[in-house]
């Protein structure tokens, strides 16, 4: 029973007229897990979240919360916590009254209510702000109140829709750590929507990458980063450079593709067969500039530097291949020669085992 998923989505979808907002989403959320929905704007993250909250009716599919079918349950009986991007605090109620609101709806007694409101406000770092109105708080403080209001009734599932989207970078990083801390301390299950891949990588146990109303890939951050299953994921989670080609030989963990720049090898993301259109994806930090000839395990391409950017700890460079494809590289400052300059021709190199070959549609 304890291993039963908190939330199960089976083929959930939503159409608005002829536009498909969410195509078909499958997901199982384990107890205590922090899962992020990561994807570009318009990929269906919010709609999926709102269907779980009960604020949108699915056009198809099935949702279970702790094994119970959510279909016939109205939003006010789902007992799910929701934190909205624009906070949605009640402007005419004090901070304490905002946090007390869900407890009033559950007919919690007066003393118990006061205790829990006080505790929860302390938990989010606002113990002395109960008497203020939301408008008297900063954006970050308002978001903490929204969080307190969604946590105070201890819902089995907390949904957050880009909760930090309206805050500046520094505050955002601080609140990311605080939300992670709350998640650990309270052991709550969280579904977190973001379009910021760094935020998703920092906070999540698993990330579901959304594209066009579907989950393109779901997995642990490291898994997604190191083994993206599609060109979209490789480009959206972290940075990748791409070289297109065609598979010439395919083994279980080694695929060779013929490209405009010669034969290149890499680790296959999925099973590929000779003749398939494929694309090689390589992370900037894996690309080096080589002087000596390539070894057996290394890919080498000849390119011309078009840009070199000094980043303090490292140097980032962009190099153009003869057919216009761009390879981005990132060299630690100790390894980057001072005289790297646009216009130079260089040999770029990376290990075959450190790049991925993906199917190209």
């Amino acid at each position, binding site marked *: 029973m304890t291993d039963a998923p908190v939330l199960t989505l089976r083929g959930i979808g939503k159409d608005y007229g002829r536009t498909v907002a969410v195509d078909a989403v499958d997901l199982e959320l384990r107890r205590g897990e922090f899962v992020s929905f990561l994807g570009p704007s318009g990929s269906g993250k919010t709609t999926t979240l709102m269907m779980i*909250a*009960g*604020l949108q009716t699915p056009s198809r599919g099935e949702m279970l919360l702790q094994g119970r079918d959510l279909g016939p349950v*109205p*939003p*006010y*009986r*789902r*007992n*799910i*916590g*929701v934190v*909205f991007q*624009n906070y*949605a605090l*009640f*402007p*005419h109620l004090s901070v304490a009254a905002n946090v007390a*609101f*869900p407890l009033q*709806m*559950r007919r919690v007694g007066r003393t118990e209510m006061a205790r829990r409101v006080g505790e929860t406000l302390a938990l989010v770092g606002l113990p002395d702000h109960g008497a203020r109105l939301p408008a008297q708080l900063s954006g970050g403080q308002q978001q903490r109140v929204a969080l307190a*209001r*969604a946590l105070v*009734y201890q819902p089995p599932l907390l949904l957050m829709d880009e909760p930090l989207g309206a805050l500046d970078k520094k505050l955002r990083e601080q609140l990311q750590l605080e939300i992670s801390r709350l998640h650990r301390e309270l052991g709550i299950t969280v579904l977190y929507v973001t379009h910021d891949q760094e935020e998703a990588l920092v906070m999540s146990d698993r990330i579901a990458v959304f594209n066009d109303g579907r989950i393109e890939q779901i997995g642990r951050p490291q898994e997604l980063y190191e083994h993206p299953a599609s060109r979209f994921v490789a480009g959206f989670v972290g940075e990748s450079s791409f070289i297109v080609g065609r598979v010439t030989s395919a083994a279980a963990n080694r695929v060779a593709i013929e490209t405009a720049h010669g034969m290149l090898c890499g680790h296959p993301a999925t099973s590929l067969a000779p003749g398939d259109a494929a694309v090689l994806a390589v992370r900037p930090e894996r690309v080096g500039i080589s002087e000596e000839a390539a070894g057996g395990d290394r890919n080498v391409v000849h390119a011309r530097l078009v840009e070199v950017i000094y980043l303090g700890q490292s140097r980032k460079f962009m190099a153009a291949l003869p057919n216009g494809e761009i390879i981005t590289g990132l060299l630690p400052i100790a390894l980057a020669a001072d005289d790297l300059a646009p216009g130079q021709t260089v040999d770029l190199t990376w290990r075959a085992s450190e790049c991925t070959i993906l199917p190209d549609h």
Partner: protein
Amino acid sequence: MNAGRLWRWLAYTVCGLVAIYLIAPMLIVVIISFSSSALLTFPPPGFSWRWYQNLVTTPAWRESFTVSLEVMTLTALLATTLGTMAAVGLAGRRTRWLAGLRTLLMAPLVVPQIVSAAGIFLLLDACGWVGTIRALVTAHTVLAIPYVVATVGAALETTDPGLVPAALTLGATPSVAFRRITLPLIRPGILSGLLFAAVLSFDELIVSLFLSTPRTRTVTVQMWSNVFGDIDPAITAIASLILLVSMLLLGAYSLIGRRRGAGSVVMPL
């Protein structure tokens, strides 16, 4: 520098003249209402309360004033309730036929009053209602609803549409969410709608003329019929009272506006 000052003085003078032009008729009416003379002479020869006493002792004035107050109260309550419900129902929805419905509700603002009056008369006459309080209340309510829809609609537009969904996720049923969240936030709009409806009903003449009988008539109709009889300063006394009621309602309106900040109370049109 000098030219600037000249222009400023010119502006003050023009404003002053316009203000006098606007206020003078009301001022003359109020002054004459305290006249000791039986004639409408200006300036009055002396001060007296006789015309106000005359109002109280003349049954026609007393009764019509009571009718007006009753109709005003019922109209304000009814129009506010119906108009608020309509505004809430129409808010945030943009389908074509709801837009049509909204236009229909606002129609009394643009339909010439005499046309509305004739139509309402024909309808209510067929029901046999002419000369009743409920006929006056029904007609005034139709005319007042657009004002309420406008003020409440404006208040709804300034409230975050995400608040009710948030309340639902927190466990509030739709009706609780309306009472605890929507209603307090649109209260200034509702109150100003209520006041506009009251002023409209109290001042209304044209439709009331069609629906009044010698036994049941509003104070405006009573004034109107008096103008053709032996005209005396009693009519200025009743006019001053109407002015007083309107000014009290307007004063209440501006108090709401001040307490809630200028943004949340919006004058219709």
